[in-house]
């Protein structure tokens, strides 16, 4: 038997064994075989239901195929069958680590389609909640990456801070996790001065706590050893694969939509875009740590600059009227009835609107036929696109680096699978 047929027969043996669910495969010469490791979809280090098929030569990864779709709920199909308002709660379930960011991104997309804008106070609040959500998402990244490489304390400390943030979200939106806080043309409700005081307290203390975490990691030999030079991706490859967000900024590309195409009130705020050159896991960690500090700065400025006023645009046929007016005014009652039953009817047209979410560019492409629900709504989720670059990052890594690389990419399967 020549080597070619031998290989084929060997391969079919593995396949047959997998199909028969027979786990005891024996080889004549085990050292000459690549091993296929099936990791996930139920695996704690894959951060959700990500499945990886990893080809190993000894301990070295020589191939990796990510498989997604285990959390596919068909949100794009659902969107075509509900009104623009009804889809807001579904956006919470995309990137469930920063639902406020998705709420904002979706509201901005629909507002762009309608040609309306939220009033200044609502815009400031949206920036505030987006940045708080970014901190919350990056804290999750910090905790899980540190835990993946064996530093358990950081996980506890990061979650202590996230817990405080969830209390803030509960005060702001009324829910800790599934916030559904934005409305088309505004917000569900205004934030109270007490809540703003809580935000202020949190954001004053936060940089100090973050520094404590940094002190545990930045000069930690084990942490540096597990992340430095691991999972490298070059600038050109990252751009080719459409990597966005902290992953791209860790390769030396200073692209951030908040700066490149400012939306909301970002152009009036002073913040830096952290860029690192390494392109490895450590660089991605540094970028996110610096981003959290910048986000804290942004929230400070928002708290100083936030104007008083309405949080709803005055567009009677497009924005849901206030409840007290619905009960007392005939016109508002009619508008409310029409908006709830038939939905807001945007003009015929198509738009693509994107924001800088914690994971990268979160975009909504909406094609409208002029009806109450979108004809087509496409969610450009950063995690889905970023996962493509996993194959490149994994090449040549060791099996123990796999979890660190996944952690550094910070995918959320709710978003990747839609």
């Amino acid at each position, binding site marked *: 038997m020549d080597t070619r047929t031998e290989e084929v027969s060997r391969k079919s043996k593995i396949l047959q064994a997998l199909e028969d669910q027979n786990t005891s495969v024996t080889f004549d010469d085990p050292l000459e075989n690549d091993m296929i490791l099936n990791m996930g979809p139920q695996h704690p280090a894959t951060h959700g239901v990500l499945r990886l098929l990893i080809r190993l030569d000894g301990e070295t990864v020589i191939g990796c195929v990510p498989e997604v779709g285990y959390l*596919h709920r068909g949100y794009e*199909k659902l969107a075509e069958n509900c009104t623009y308002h009804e889809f807001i709660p579904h956006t919470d379930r995309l990137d469930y680590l920063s639902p406020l960011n998705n709420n904002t991104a979706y509201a901005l997309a629909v507002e762009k389609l309608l040609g309306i804008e939220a009033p200044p106070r609502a815009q400031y609040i949206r920036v505030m909640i987006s940045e708080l959500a970014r901190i919350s998402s990056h804290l999750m990244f910090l905790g899980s990456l540190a835990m993946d490489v064996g530093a358990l304390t950081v996980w506890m400390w990061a979650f202590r801070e996230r817990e405080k943030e969830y209390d803030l979200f509960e005060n702001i939106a009324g829910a800790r996790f599934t916030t559904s806080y934005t409305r088309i043309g505004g917000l569900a409700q205004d934030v109270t001065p007490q809540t703003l005081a809580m935000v202020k307290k949190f954001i004053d203390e936060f940089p100090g706590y973050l520094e404590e975490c940094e002190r545990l990691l930045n000069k930690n030999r084990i942490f540096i050893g597990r992340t430095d030079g691991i999972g490298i991706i070059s600038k050109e490859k990252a751009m080719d694969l459409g990597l966005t967000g902290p992953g791209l900024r860790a390769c030396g590309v200073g692209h951030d939509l908040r700066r490149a195409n400012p939306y909301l009130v970002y152009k009036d705020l002073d913040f830096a875009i952290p860029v690192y050159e390494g392109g490895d896991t450590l660089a991605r960690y540094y970028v996110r740590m610096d981003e959290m500090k910048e986000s804290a700065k942004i929230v400070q400025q928002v708290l100083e600059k936030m104007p008083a006023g309405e949080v709803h645009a005055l567009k009677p046929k497009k924005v849901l009227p206030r409840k007290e007016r619905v009960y007392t005014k005939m016109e508002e009652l009619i508008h409310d009835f029409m908006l709830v039953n038939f939905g807001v009817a945007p003009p015929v047209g198509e738009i693509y609107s994107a924001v800088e979410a914690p994971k990268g560019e979160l975009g909504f492409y909406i094609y409208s036929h002029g009806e109450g629900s979108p004809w087509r709504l496409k969610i450009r989720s950063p995690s889905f696109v970023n996962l493509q670059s996993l194959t490149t990052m994994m090449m040549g890594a060791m099996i123990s680096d796999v979890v660190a690389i996944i952690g550094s990419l910070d995918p959320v399967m709710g978003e990747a699978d839609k």
Partner: protein
Amino acid sequence: MDNGFVLEKLKARFGEGSIESSVFRDELTVVLPKEIIVEVCRFLKEESQLEFDLLADLCGIDMYTPVKRFGVIYNLYSLKNKHRLRLKTFVEEEDPKLPTVTTVWGTANWHERETYDMFGVVFEGHPDLRRVYMPDEFEYFPLRKDFPLMGIPGSIPLPKK
């Protein structure tokens, strides 16, 4: 850079006849025949004054019309010029095939798989055209308008024991 400049460049290179365009909310949409889509994409990426180096998104759309039923939409972004551009091309229901742009942007790989998965549009020359979300045995294309919202009972087979 503005929309007019991009359109002028495209028309100068590919001729007036093959390009239709529209502007809505300050976003330029260019509709092209599918035969020249790869050529146009490469031109947009490599031309020194345009440099649309990031394929932000690629998706399908079912217009549910007798002709030109399926559309494929390319949302491009230029990191240097911070400008967006949308390309659009249509394929017929009987022959939903068009060339792949994975040769221009590597990121198109999964996007095209998703479009194939959801609409059944086939990208010719794609290195690995498999379903990305639905199971491989699934026979339908869920985002087509004639696929019911509730799904088709029994269409997702249970795993073999």
